């Protein structure tokens, strides 16, 4: 059963066709990865799904419902589609804790008047959220030592982790991660891969990810879609995708297929 189905999606900016007739599905409770060279349209696809871009054609079906262009980003967030960004989009002036709490915003109800008074319903709600954030998310992602620090002072790897924490606080059904391990060192990558696997296993959240790190993609993905020049060239299990000659061509051009095989198949590398 697919939680997210993309059918014949097309998006163009003037003459530039960012996405052409893109179709693929994200099976529920899997880690599905979109790979493809730079400029293939991966982030554009994410932006269509989260509602920032309005595709000219095609449908996005989420839990069986069509998400029309009229459904704006905040509404999609409330429906359970949450995401992180390629270049971190945290609120830099706020502390880690406040950033994560912001993730829970859509699930909170207190209005302006109870906020002005604070004591009473607003405080009760804040405490529930705090407890939840502390016990479920901060513990899980091992960021308890930095909860009071402003985000701007953290290392890149930790910022990525805080962004993941914030996305989790939204209690998503589908978590979209745009390059979750880009620019990380090996240790940070391994941590992040472990978190992503746990999110799928323990939280039952479907993960849709864009990533360039082939080692990690092949290791943890259940399902891979390959995008090139705005088109899906193939989709399937990691092992199938790795062998597909079109994928190899998309990545390296026609020549030098051996080194490309190596790149797509990290097992072959000297460990």
């Amino acid at each position, binding site marked *: 059963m697919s939680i997210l189905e993309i059918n014949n999606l097309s998006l163009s900016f003037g003459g530039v066709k960012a996405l052409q007739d893109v179709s693929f599905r994200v099976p529920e409770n899997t880690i599905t990865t979109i790979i493809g060279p730079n400029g293939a349209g991966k982030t554009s696809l994410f932006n269509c799904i*989260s509602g*920032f871009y309005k595709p000219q054609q095609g449908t996005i079906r989420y839990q069986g419902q069509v998400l029309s262009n009229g459904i*704006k*980003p*905040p*509404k999609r*967030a*409330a429906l359970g589609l*949450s*995401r992180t*960004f390629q270049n971190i*989009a*945290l*609120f*830099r*002036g*706020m502390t880690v804790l*406040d950033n994560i*709490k*912001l*993730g*829970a*915003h*859509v699930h*909170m109800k*207190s*209005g*302006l008047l*109870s*906020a*002005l*008074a*604070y004591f009473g319903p*607003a*405080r009760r*709600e*804040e*405490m529930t959220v*705090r*407890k939840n954030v*502390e016990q479920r998310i901060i513990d899980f992602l091992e960021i308890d030592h930095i909860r009071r620090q402003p985000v701007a002072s953290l290392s890149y790897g930790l910022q990525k982790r805080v962004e993941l924490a*914030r996305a989790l606080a*939204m209690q998503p059904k589908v978590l979209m991660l745009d390059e979750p391990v880009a620019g990380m060192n090996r240790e940070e990558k391994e941590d992040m891969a472990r978190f992503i696997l746990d999110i799928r296993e323990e939280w039952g959240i479907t993960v849709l990810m864009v990533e360039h790190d082939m080692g990690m993609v092949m290791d943890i993905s259940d399902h891979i879609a390959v995008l090139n020049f705005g088109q899906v060239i193939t989709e399937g299990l990691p092992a199938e995708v790795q062998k597909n000659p079109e994928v190899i061509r998309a990545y390296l051009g026609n020549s030098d297929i051996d080194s490309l095989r190596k790149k797509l198949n990290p097992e072959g590398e000297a460990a």
Partner: protein
Amino acid sequence: MRIGDAKQSYGADEAIWTSQTQKLWFGLLLVILLVFPFMADSYLLYLGCLVGIAVISTTGLNILTGFTGLISLGQAGFMGVGAYTVAWLSLNTGLPFPVTLMLAGLMAAAVGILVGLPSLRVKGLYLAIATLAASVFLHFIFAEWESVTGGMGGLSLEPAHLFGWAFQSDFMMYFIIVPLSVLMVFAARNVFRTRIGRAFIAIRDRDISAEILGIDLLRYKLMSFALSSFYAGVAGGLFAYFFRVVTPESFPLSMSIFYLAAVIVGGMGNLLGGILGAAFMTLVPEALKLLTAALTPFYPNAPVFMSPMLEIIFGALIVGFLIFEPHGLAEIWHRIRRFFRLWPFRN
């Protein structure tokens, strides 16, 4: 040195005052505020009231500009709406002051929402110009809608009253203005302990991620405008009761800039900064006048020389603060606190 502040509940961790020492200092401040009117002469009392009014209005503008990142040059206009509402109500109805002030706030909030509508589309300087237009428009209404506002002559009003008490003197007004400003600063502090305040800051820091988190930008921007203008409206209402005359010239454009400067000098996005900025902007020109008076016995020409210089010195002080303390007066306070956190062991 700060010790023994381990917390056992999340509630204690998120309290405004997290240690006994803080509570003690704040209690001391309240006592000073309470004793002040009994010790002060009429001039100091007058200044105290002015600072109180400025604190309310600056806190309001801080919510909008400092925390939500929406620059507004409409603050004086919103204060005018509040002041005229109070003046009209006091002349035409017999309502007591808590009701008129509340209505003044609500009226200003309604106008604020209207003025805030373009904020979804325009940001930064463009929004500043849009709010500037609104403030010119409001000024025009104050001056021309004679049947309600009394035109250029303005309105004179009766003193504030409640249960048959009339608040005629500055001394009595102090006991309305200062408690109200303490209350309203706390209310603002509360907002920033909850989801609403976080949403404001999120919009300021990065509006695209705010949207992805499910924050409806228009709704929260308008809410910020409404809240900010509510504060301005109440401050304007107090202004009306304090001076007991309201004219279109009571709320010139320069007043909007005054409040914007107070927010910036104090520290944007910092409630303490708003308070310090309001006090600075109100008191420094007065202090400069006192300085002139003090110099006169030695240099008989001081008033002639100094009076045109006051504005320049005032301006230079503001520029100096911006250069040397870009995070505002509040940052100085935070530095002092950091110093004493470890004192006397390391500094």
